[in-house]
């Protein structure tokens, strides 16, 4: 990753497990990443890949659910995993803020928007109610809500979806956070509103020098927003690099699958999409060896035994991948895929033995 100075947030070998009736759910299974001030990290993956749980854990929000957390989450030198609840509370919503996917269910329907914003301010700042209210109006203006002095006295139902997400962002910004975690911030929104929200987040990041972690399954959104990308699969990071590298020279077969399964606006209509076969694995009994091997079109017999490590890609120190294929094979395969070959054809063209059924 593009290292500039000290990381603001450094997650080291984070593991989160939940007990369940059927066994232990390994929601996050040893992930490491860092976020730098003023930069954006995009975490990409399917539902159940652990991307949301890892972020909730950063804020200590999985503690009450009986999660077993190990590893370290270093934020400005403090380990958030072991930090006592009261100290964590002074960081949450203050230095680290979060916005969620569904803006309607994240706002209280019976309180005026202004009151909810005032609450966010007063939770961390010792100011008068009047000053907090002034700040609420200022925040609504900052996120581009017209006529904020009037809007502050309205209820959430009087706001459209995009406006509500702006209110959520305003609330997150209430105390000038250093880190903003945005969990699928635009998934419930229309494209035009999505573009507004993304532009807003970029502008605020520039103005406030915030670090952003954006969690999404939309590769278009990460391409637009992120400086660095971490691709998660079954609770692990399988590839991490700069956004440019991930899109120009992806190394992991799962990343290839994601890139090839989205229709493109400028693509040919005659080309079939190449879906990733199968379904995401169980996190209670994850597959042996490489977690992706049952769905990987290129897996070899020993991939069901050996667990790959996230290792640097040859010649690209900031690019890491957890894949058992040799880097020459991977480059050949990706080149064939780029020529429009299907996975099985690429496998044959690259001269690799066929994957066992």
């Amino acid at each position: 990753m593009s290292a500039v100075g000290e990381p603001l947030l450094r997650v080291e070998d984070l593991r989160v497990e939940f007990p369940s009736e059927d066994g232990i759910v390994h929601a996050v299974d040893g992930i490491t990443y860092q976020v730098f001030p003023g930069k954006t990290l995009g975490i990409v993956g399917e539902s159940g890949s652990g991307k949301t749980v890892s972020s909730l854990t950063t804020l200590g929000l999985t503690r009450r659910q009986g999660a077993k957390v190990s590893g370290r989450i270093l934020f400005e030198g403090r380990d958030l995993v072991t930090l006592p609840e009261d100290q964590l509370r002074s960081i949450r919503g203050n230095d680290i803020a979060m916005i969620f996917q569904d803006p309607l269910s994240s706002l209280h329907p019976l309180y005026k928007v202004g009151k909810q914003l005032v609450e966010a301010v007063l939770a961390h700042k010792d100011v008068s109610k009047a000053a907090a209210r002034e700040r609420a109006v200022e925040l609504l203006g900052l996120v581009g809500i017209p006529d904020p002095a009037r809007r502050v006295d309205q209820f959430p139902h009087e706001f459209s979806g995009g406006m509500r997400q702006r209110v959520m962002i305003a609330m997150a910004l209430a105390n000038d956070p250093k880190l903003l975690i945005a969990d699928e911030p635009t998934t419930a929104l229309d494209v035009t509103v999505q573009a507004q929200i993304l532009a807003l987040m970029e502008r605020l990041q520039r103005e406030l020098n915030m670090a952003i972690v954006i969690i999404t399954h939309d590769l278009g959104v990460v391409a637009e927003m992120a400086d660095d990308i971490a691709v998660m699969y079954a609770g692990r990071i399988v590839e991490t690099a700069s956004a440019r590298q991930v899109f120009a020279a992806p190394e992991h077969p799962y990343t290839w699958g994601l890139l090839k399964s989205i229709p493109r606006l400028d693509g040919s209509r005659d080309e079939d999409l190449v879906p990733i076969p199968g379904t995401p694995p169980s996190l209670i009994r994850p597959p042996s060896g490489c977690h992706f091997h049952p769905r990987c079109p290129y897996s070899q017999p020993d991939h069901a035994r050996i667990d790959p490590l996230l290792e640097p890609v040859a010649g690209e120190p900031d690019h890491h991948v957890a894949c058992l294929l040799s880097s020459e094979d991977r480059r050949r395969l990706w080149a064939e895929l780029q020529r429009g070959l299907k996975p099985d054809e690429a496998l044959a063209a690259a001269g690799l033995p066929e994957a066992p059924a």
Partner: protein
Amino acid sequence: MSEAGTPEAPSGLAGSTPQETGAGDGALVKVRDLVKHFPITRGIIFQRKVGAVRAVDGVSFEIKRGETLGLVGETGCGKSTTARLVTRLLDATSGLVSFDGQDITRVKGGRLKAVRREMQMVFQDPYSSLNPRKTIGSIIAEPFAIHGLLPDKGERKREVQRLMEIVGLNPEHYNRYPHEFSGGQRQRIGVARALALKPKLLVADEPVSALDVSIQAQVLNLLRDLQRQFGLTVVFIAHDLSVVRHMCDRVAVMYLGKVVEIGGGDELYGFPRHPYTGALLAAVPVADPTRHGEKRRVLGGDVPSPANPPSGCRFHTRCPKAQDICATQEPVLEDKGSGTQAACHFPLTREELADMGVKTRA
């Protein structure tokens, strides 16, 4: 809905008889000036009508046999309502829907049931559109039960299992319940159920919006294969413009209950003329970080209320090209000389599209 008081009698379709509209021009569905207003009422016992949400407000289009028509637009633009009017899940306030040469706007009872056999829907949410207490075998067999087909149990089971195979489900899972399946598999169940009666028209309302990207591609490929295999006519509703581009032969862009632009997929995406279509395309995030930081023009504001739509061109309040005439005179949907029909007084030029960051094609 009573026959009396409807502004247009069925024979109002340019004097054509049902037989004529059916065979000749290859259109399976014809929609003329379709309107659906939902009343807004006040009061509890005596409900006074105080206004109307103009969900669909004068929409006309045709769908040819074997064609996939995409409906796109923001939330609340009327695309789902239009689909529900076509399938007669809602009754139109006025206007006309003809299906397979027959006016179905007001058909009732047995005739309606017969028409519904020919048109089936796949819904957005594969979790709530399947009854959790029924096995998927009986879910897929439900259409046969409703229409009294295949009374022989063995025969019915064989047909259901054949359908399961077609959509890529394991026929041995006949006796399982919906909760045992993933989202993508459930959507396949929904597709199998929709195909059971060999419909002529399939309406897919946001069929992949609730699915993960990798699974989304599986379902999209399935729908495309089935469409080719059975020559289905499909109405495909989605808010994802890339998905619509991939799936559809023709695309209609809707805004506040109106079609603002309609045309072939290549033409509409290659050279959109309506500023709203341009704005939608400009807003799609591009999976290409080398274009990161390119200034894109973001459409400001929100969709106005459909209960009180703007005068003239409904888009004029948000349109960067709007002039005085746009607020007073409603533009008609007409050919703009580049392959699409657009309802706009000042259609976009290639230079303007380039400024918006939208690539055009000759």
